[in-house]
């Protein structure tokens, strides 16, 4: 099929050379990240509009979020981002076992994030600090505090779904790493997973202060 003398196994037929394939993947991934930013963007618009309309509600309601848990989760997610970056670096150097270790740590940290989020959510559900018609909490002064919790649950919920999707992808590249699919010459899937994971981290970096700190 190919006239190239050397045609590595990972190179798909419609690409001429590995650089072209890797650059295409990266470009596609970045464009996909752009769509993710705009997907979340809609919720940032909702946040901005309603915070500007009801600053008092956002202030009165945000004190009901646990800054400590939020901060711990930020640390967890940032650390996982670091280990993800290190996983890629290890593979760039061809160190397969180091990559596996880093990916496993990333996965565990992601799990930790979700566990903490679970405790936060269940506490709120218990108190009735919920969106829309499920809102039954009575301890917040001002008009329509349910909107704050609606925005909170939507943004952190969508983020949580992205964490889950990220974990699924990490498991997939972990399996392929163990299988020996990757080398210093080809590690595009890990790199793409990394980009996605860093974006999930990036979004949390904004969510944390917006909800837990300034409200």
């Amino acid at each position, binding site marked *: 099929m190919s006239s190239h003398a*050397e045609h590595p196994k990972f190179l798909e037929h419609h690409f001429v050379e590995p650089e072209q394939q890797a650059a295409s993947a990266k470009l596609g991934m*970045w464009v996909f990240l752009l769509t993710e930013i705009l997907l979340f*963007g809609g919720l940032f618009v909702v946040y901005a509009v309603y915070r500007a309309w009801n600053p008092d509600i956002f202030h009165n309601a945000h004190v009901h979020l646990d800054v400590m848990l939020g901060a711990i989760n930020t*640390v967890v997610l940032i650390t996982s981002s*670091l280990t993800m970056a290190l996983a890629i670096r290890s593979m760039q150097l061809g160190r397969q076992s180091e990559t596996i270790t880093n990916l496993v740590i990333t996965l565990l940290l992601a799990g930790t994030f979700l566990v903490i989020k679970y405790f936060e959510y269940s506490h709120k559900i218990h108190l009735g600090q919920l969106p829309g018609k499920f809102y039954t909490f009575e301890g917040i002064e001002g008009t329509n505090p349910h909107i704050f919790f609606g925005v909170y649950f939507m943004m952190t919920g969508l983020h949580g779904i992205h964490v889950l999707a990220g974990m699924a992808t990490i498991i997939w590249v972990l399996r392929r790493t163990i299988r020996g699919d990757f080398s210093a*010459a080809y590690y595009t899937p890990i790199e793409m997973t990394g980009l996605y994971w860093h974006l999930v981290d990036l979004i949390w970096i904004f969510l944390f202060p917006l909800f837990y700190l300034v409200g």
Partner: protein
Amino acid sequence: MAESHSQKHHILPLSVYLAVGTALLVLTGVTVWVASYDFGAFNLVVAMSIAAFKAALVAAYFMHLLYDSKIYLLILLTAIAFLAVFIIFTMFDTMTRDQIYEIKAAPIEPDAVIYREAVDTTAGVTDTTAAEVIDTTAGDTSGH
């Protein structure tokens, strides 16, 4: 695998990653710490500035934007620019509805229906609407 096929990459030293990671953790501490002081309207500005700086670190080092082709940076900036357009243009409307008539700025009845259910439901027409709203959400295809 022949050397010519290996991916072009710039391998950062481990120290850079660790330094950036540490900086991110320190900045997390800083943002929590400054939040305990009240700067009034500047609370948001301070918090967002720190967050933006942290985000820039992640993008530049973890996501390799600093070393990669600038097209990826362009894509990221495009996303941010269009998000800014979305926010700013929408708020042109939401923040200036009272320019000519103040009465247009706010809802007639500020409280949502869930806070009003104790009130006599037949007294005002608005409440009937709200009741309808809650009714129809019970089932998607009711009324057929």
